[in-house]
């Protein structure tokens, strides 16, 4: 059925994409990050919260620009930086460092339920649960108000 080759290939592509996110949870470990919102939602992209992470900071020995890091659970159950380098290594999460802050593509924004954005932004103290695969991919799972 040559006519359905394209929808089949396209479904396969989306399935691999979806599977790769599930694989992060199947093979990876779960961490909770302290998070803070820093930007109101954008009406064009739907409701999402832009996040930054007070515990993810680069050391002075790290040059600003592209960085590679792993995280581990800290003493107060929130995740902290385990290893950080300017060169890539296996299992590392790729990110960028500027002004000692660390940003990484998949941790920058979190889509939330309609109407929940302002509430989370007002709360300011948030926590993000993420699954991190052994190969360094991240799957953000849950954004909640932090209780410490």
């Amino acid at each position, binding site marked *: 059925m*040559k*006519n*359905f*080759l*394209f*929808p089949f*290939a*396209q*479904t396969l*592509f*989306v399935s691999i*994409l*979806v599977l790769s*996110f599930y694989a992060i949870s199947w093979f990876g470990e779960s961490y909770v990050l302290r998070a803070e919102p820093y930007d109101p939602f954008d009406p064009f992209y*739907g409701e999402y919260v832009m996040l930054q992470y007070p515990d993810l900071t680069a050391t002075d020995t790290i040059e600003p620009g592209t960085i590679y890091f792993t995280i581990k659970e800290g003493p107060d159950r929130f995740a902290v930086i385990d290893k950080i380098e300017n060169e890539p290594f296996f299992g590392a999460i790729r990110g960028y460092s500027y002004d000692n802050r660390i940003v990484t*593509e*998949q941790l*920058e*924004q*979190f*889509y939330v*339920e*309609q109407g929940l954005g302002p509430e989370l932004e007002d709360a300011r103290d948030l926590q993000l649960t993420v699954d991190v695969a052994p190969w360094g991919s991240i*799957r*953000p799972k849950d954004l909640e108000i932090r209780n410490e």
Partner: protein
Amino acid sequence: MEMKRKLYQWRDEGFIDQASIERILAFEKQQPQKKKVPLLLMISLIFLALAIFSFIAANWQLMPDLLKVSLVLLLMWIFYGLGYAAERKQFGWPILFRLIGLAMFAASIIVTAQTFHFSLSNSVLPWAMFLAALGHYFYWRHMSYTLVGFFFGLQVLTSALPAISWVEWGLFIAITLAWFYFSKEALPIVFSWLLLFGSGLMLWSLIDYTSALWPIWTLFTLVFLLILAPQKEPILRPLYLIIGAIQLIVYLGVRGEANLSFIDFSWLEVILLAVVSIGIFGLCFIKFRTISWIAILGTVGLLLVDDTAIGIAIVAQLSALSYLIMAQRQERSLTLGFVYFIIVQFVIYVIYVWERLDMSLFFLIGALLLFILSGIGWWINRKKEGAIT
């Protein structure tokens, strides 16, 4: 019934006989009957679709992740199915259904990204759509897919900014080159050529050396495409000349108006460009004479050194005039040449006369110039017509 009544009326008036009526009715009976969809059924279907969509929208946040993605994929399959059925049973527009199916594929990626909080500020979506659109084009050979392919090809280039990798760049060129090579119609050839030109401009992002001359190097490199596919030269000829002319005008404007201190200047590069342009001129003169004009761009590197841009202005003026004269002598269309000539005059005015001239005088001179040019055009045409008669 209406037809039968008319036929009997014509028979009674003596226009046709009974035998003709029977032949007409027998012929009409063999024609395929129009299948009418009952109006009520159509309205109910529309309302059902609206109800389904509003139900999905209302429960979107509560749906499991997989269900969201599957729903959009299901819609994609429905539209491809409709496309297939429309082609087989000859109803509706198969192309439109498949285009909607393709759009649903894009939607499924967006929904997947949102569901899994995956950032879309990368080139995953443009790449997937670019490849899918090209696949559709080569399978169904319909021009609408080339439009989609061109749009997402541009998206691949722009979304890869500011830092595209060599692998991604090489892959993009390889695929676009294949699109160019295996296309036979004008539109995909022009689109793939423009994307190849666009990938040349990506050298600004790929290499630390900020050359002012990447567009010229790219245009010169693209001449070799004509050696690869010489039969496509008639389609691409105006493109080489138009892009060459735009480049010369942009260089003239930018050099005349801006300080180019942010650009890396190298004598080695400008001399190399001039030498290469001689080679390009030789190659074009032998094989593709009409596009030899682009070799003029080889002088731009050397002329950029002068910050008054006088050199580029002279080259632009001379090239415009000589193109017009040559085109007139060879009895080719003068339209593009005239447009180029007029733009060159305007750019030169803006660069050199703008600050010294009163605005009204500027427009007056521009209008006079246009008036004189149209007079010359009218006179040439009149002379031509006279010669023919």
